[in-house]
């Protein structure tokens, strides 16, 4: 007959360690940022007043949003196109199966990861400082941000392609460039388009807030209205942004679905 084995001991050090870390980290963080439910509750009346001030949105302000809103879209388009093109070589060199050699691969991969660590607004601040306030700084910032998004995702899908075609091109005497162009990129094209659209969605969203640091677009108006506590206008701007983002996402998503 079978004998019931004893219940295996739990890994108490790991369990307690994890629990302790979670609780400790949360307590330390909550303390560090001054998290307090009482403060939140005490401030709720103030919040209510803010909401009353923010509502209804100032619809008369809407026409003045047109020009900065279009600027936002222009910035997103430029950022996606420039970043999308520059991302191609970076992604190819970061794909283990296509890269030129271990040193190039290692350098490119680290370059890519470092690009990814900095948030979009950091790039915007730096470019705004370098080339001056305005949409050019925003477009440059989004170009870098786009490179980071697309190259990471696309290099991973390039690593998963069928190597038969590229090897055939190489065997037929093709150069490395021809191998990439005719053997690899056609297979990765659908993914590329899909990631580029995804990056465009992110860029539209990001370009709404670039203006907060002076990098052009609708965010610059948002910043001035916010600084003047014109919350009815702030609400108007945010509502417009929300609708635009949702519409663009819907369009982009339907294109992506059709591609898949």
């Amino acid at each position, binding site marked *: *007959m*079978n*004998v*019931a*084995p004893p*219940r*295996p001991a739990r890994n108490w050090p790991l369990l307690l360690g994890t629990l302790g870390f979670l609780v400790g980290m949360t307590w330390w963080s909550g303390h560090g940022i001054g998290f307090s439910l009482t403060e939140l509750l005490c401030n709720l009346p103030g919040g209510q007043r803010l909401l009353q001030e923010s509502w209804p949105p100032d619809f008369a302000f809407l026409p003045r949003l047109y020009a900065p809103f279009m600027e936002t879209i222009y910035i997103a388009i430029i950022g996606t196109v420039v970043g999308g093109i520059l991302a191609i070589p970076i992604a190819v060199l970061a794909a283990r199966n296509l890269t030129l050699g271990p040193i190039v691969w290692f350098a490119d991969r680290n370059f890519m990861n470092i690009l990814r660590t900095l948030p979009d607004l950091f790039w915007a601040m730096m470019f705004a400082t370098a080339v001056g306030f305005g949409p050019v700084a925003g477009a440059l910032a989004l170009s870098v941000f786009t490179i980071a998004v697309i190259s990471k995702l696309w290099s991973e899908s390039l690593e998963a392609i069928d190597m038969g075609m590229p090897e055939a091109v190489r065997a037929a005497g093709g150069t490395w460039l021809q191998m990439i162009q005719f053997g690899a990129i056609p297979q990765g094209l659908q993914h590329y388009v899909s990631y580029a659209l995804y990056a465009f969605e992110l860029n539209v969203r990001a370009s709404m807030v670039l203006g907060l640091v002076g990098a052009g677009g609708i965010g610059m108006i948002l910043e001035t209205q916010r600084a003047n506590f014109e919350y009815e206008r702030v609400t108007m701007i945010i509502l417009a942004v929300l609708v635009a983002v949702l519409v663009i996402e819907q369009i982009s998503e339907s294109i992506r679905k059709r591609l898949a």
Partner: protein
Amino acid sequence: MNKNQGSIRFTDASVVYPNGTVGMKDLNLEIRPGEFVVIVGSSGAGKSTLLRAINGLNRMTSGTVEVDGTKVPQKDGRELRVLRKRVGMIFQDFRLVKRLTVMSNVLIGRLAHVPGWRAMFNLWPAHDREVAMKALERVGITEKAWVKAAQLSGGQQQRVGIARALAQEPAIILADEPVASLDPVTTHQIMKDLVRINRELGITTLVNLHFLDLAKQYGQRIIGLRFGELVYDGSAANVTDEDFRDIYGRDFTEDDVLDEDAVGG
């Protein structure tokens, strides 16, 4: 063991699915406590409908099902849960939570027996753990108690499924095609387990089977269904090839039996 006897009675019971399919038609049937009943019929004949009506997973369109004289409630809620507590079910695809240990899976059979908060926080009384362990003992896989269900073979997983049903200390066990996903050797082991449990514990057992030879070999009483209607009800010892032909509406082929030599045997 449970004092409830485990009798089942269908009275003019019918099930029509929303898409118009007839799952059960004017069924009148009585099953006595402790019987081992095998239900046969081609696919779509209403075997599952019959089993799932007994624990209220399928609702009746008309007529009634009673378990030990109590009508099976036709809506979700406490009463239905109380009834299901006494009816264990075994599934073709085992329906285990693969990421949980075997023990946790068997304890699922005790959920209705302990206070909700205890179950919620995984604080099982020692008694319930014991019942679960006994259930595992009965199907002979105690040594796997602390292994994740995903690591077991198909036959072992079905044993856990049986143990989960046994942990309910049920009056009735419903087994819906319990061996359809298993290889022939394991199939016989599982069928033997079911028969043994029925004998040892006197639990009324209803088993849906597709294979005729298995039905004949293991059934006490055989019920044949065709298009939701009862077309055969008799002892397994007396069932003939003729009867099977009636049930299936055609000559049976080697697809209908597990071992080819068993045809006519």
